[in-house]
């Protein structure tokens, strides 16, 4: 029997300070064994439990894309025991990874559609995975127009700045970054994500929206999408309930009868509307 609790050993090859406030680091991990790397197949939207030996485990969305082979990437905010330990970790250290977990099937449903991807704060990580996946030459043709709206409190808190700059140059993606309040040196858009969405979101015909961010952002963005004509079935959300096992057994991540770890973390708004608001 395969033991779903045993982590796959990985090496931390890069511990990169991602944001100006230094509270988010991006970690690059490489498998110790080649067979592990080969058997680890994932899709954007999935997550893993990262294990810091001696400190415990915590779930993180995969920020790298399956189209980028040889490593896994995560961006992690420092909040508690595991995340603090991770931030202090030396490059070269051994960590563990359990997964991939969650349903990665959402991507299939997005094929053939125009997409508007809306992210705020550090929840942008799994959206990076999705965007990178879509922009891959092998996949770009499977999807229609791509609009990305990404908001942060200030420019220093935007993740993946180099990539954002590259995406801005491309014609097959319309990237709109916004910050909450004006700031010196920022000559782009200012304003909250919901307002920005109202202004730049594409027509809802044959379009799906993927929303990932803090609860407040989600709360105010979903009504905007509804106004723009997006039906609940056209809106995808990713939930972040507290998790431990990641495999539907420990009983803590449920929203109604659904387990976020096993049945999610990505749900359509239509699915969530049928569940109690416990997220």
């Amino acid at each position, binding site marked *: *029997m395969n033991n779903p609790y045993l982590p796959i050993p990985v090496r931390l090859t890069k511990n990169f300070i991602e944001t100006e406030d230094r509270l988010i680091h991006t970690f690059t991990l490489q498998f110790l064994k080649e067979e592990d790397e080969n058997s680890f197949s994932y899709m954007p939207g999935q997550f893993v439990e990262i294990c810091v030996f001696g400190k415990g485990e915590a779930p993180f969305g995969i920020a790298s894309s399956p189209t980028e082979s040889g490593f896994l990437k995560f961006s992690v905010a420092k*909040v508690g025991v595991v*995340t603090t330990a991770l931030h202090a970790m030396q490059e070269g250290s*051994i960590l563990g990874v359990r997964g991939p977990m969650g349903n990665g099937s959402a991507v299939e449903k997005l094929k053939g559609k125009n997409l508007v991807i809306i992210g705020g704060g550090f929840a942008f990580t799994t959206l990076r995975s999705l965007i990178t996946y879509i922009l891959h030459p092998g996949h770009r043709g499977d999807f229609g127009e791509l609009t990305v709206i990404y908001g942060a409190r200030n420019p220093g808190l935007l993740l993946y700045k180099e990539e954002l700059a590259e995406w801005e140059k491309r014609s097959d993606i319309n990237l709109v970054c916004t910050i909450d309040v004006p700031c010196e040196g920022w000559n782009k858009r200012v304003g909250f994500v919901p307002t920005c969405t109202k202004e730049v979101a594409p027509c809802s015909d044959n379009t799906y929206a993927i929303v990932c961010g803090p609860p407040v952002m989600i709360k105010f963005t979903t009504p905007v999408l509804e106004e723009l004509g997006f039906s609940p079935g056209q809106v995808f959300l990713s939930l972040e309930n*507290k998790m*431990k096992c990641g495999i539907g057994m*420990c009983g803590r991540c*449920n929203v109604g009868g659904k387990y976020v770890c096993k049945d999610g973390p990505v749900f359509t708004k239509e699915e969530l509307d049928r569940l109690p608001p*416990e997220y």
Partner: protein
Amino acid sequence: MIIKKSELSSFLDKLTGQYQVLAPVKKGLEFYFQPISSGVQADLSYSNSVTAPKGILFPQSETLFNYDVQGETADMQECLDTGKKVIFGLRPCDAKSLVLLDKVFHGEKYQDPYYLSRRANTVLVGLGCGEPRGTCFCASLDGGPFGTEGLDLLLVDIGDKYVVEVVSEKGASFLTGASLPLAGKDDRAAAAKAKETAFQACTINLEGLKEKMDVNYDDPVWGFLHEKCLGCGACTYSCPTCHCFDILDEVKDSTGCRVRNWDACMFPLFTLHGSGHNPRPTGKERFRQRFMHKFKYFVDNYGAFACVGCGRCILNCPVNIDIRQVLADIKAGGDEK
């Protein structure tokens, strides 16, 4: 087959050579399932144990694996328990609870090797309930004082001896070599008679409960049902069907172990996010979760109520929250009566 009460302890003695035998043992006023080294320690004169024997297969605390991480290597040692066990004299409700736990721990995509390996290596010898407690309501939950679901063998007390009924193949092969005398016609008649009376007592009316719970998430009833609940773990930790757990690390120098401990949906920390946000912020949501999980979500996911009617939560609740009353109130709905 028959086991004479006078020969029970020697029967158990023989088993202890081949198996780890766990049986009800009296400590103070209470009974606990514990490993016994000699047959005389077992005391079957019990109504039920304080905590459920599920803890034998899914311990309150267990090490999942040990590890030693040094430089370039991570050495991990799984701690699977594959020892042969017999749980002797467990009540039918507790056996049935294991069938429910099987559904959780044997998922479609993932299987829990710790629970399942213990489960596969354990023989369950049940003891029918000639005298159910006043708090028992197993017969309303697809079981009964002589229910056999989940069991390998069932003992029926007929006075000075037990009639042994074979329930599963595992039970049958367990008995080969035991050379027990066969049950006579009178014994079988006595066993049948013992069963008749017990059933009626253990019922409550659950009709319409699930249908009600499909639509009552916002019912005002939740606003007052939870009020006196203290938010402790006395109910969930004694319940044979509760399966929530936590996973954490314990370390000594470079070696450590990953441990899992029972956890409970009644504790606020259970769902508290790292950000401070809590999807179930008050006692009301947590109390509703406990009942929704048992009587709606579990039914939706696995087709059965996650309660076997053992009545432990009734006996152990420090403020006498009685699940039978709670279910009746849920069905009635609305404001406080």
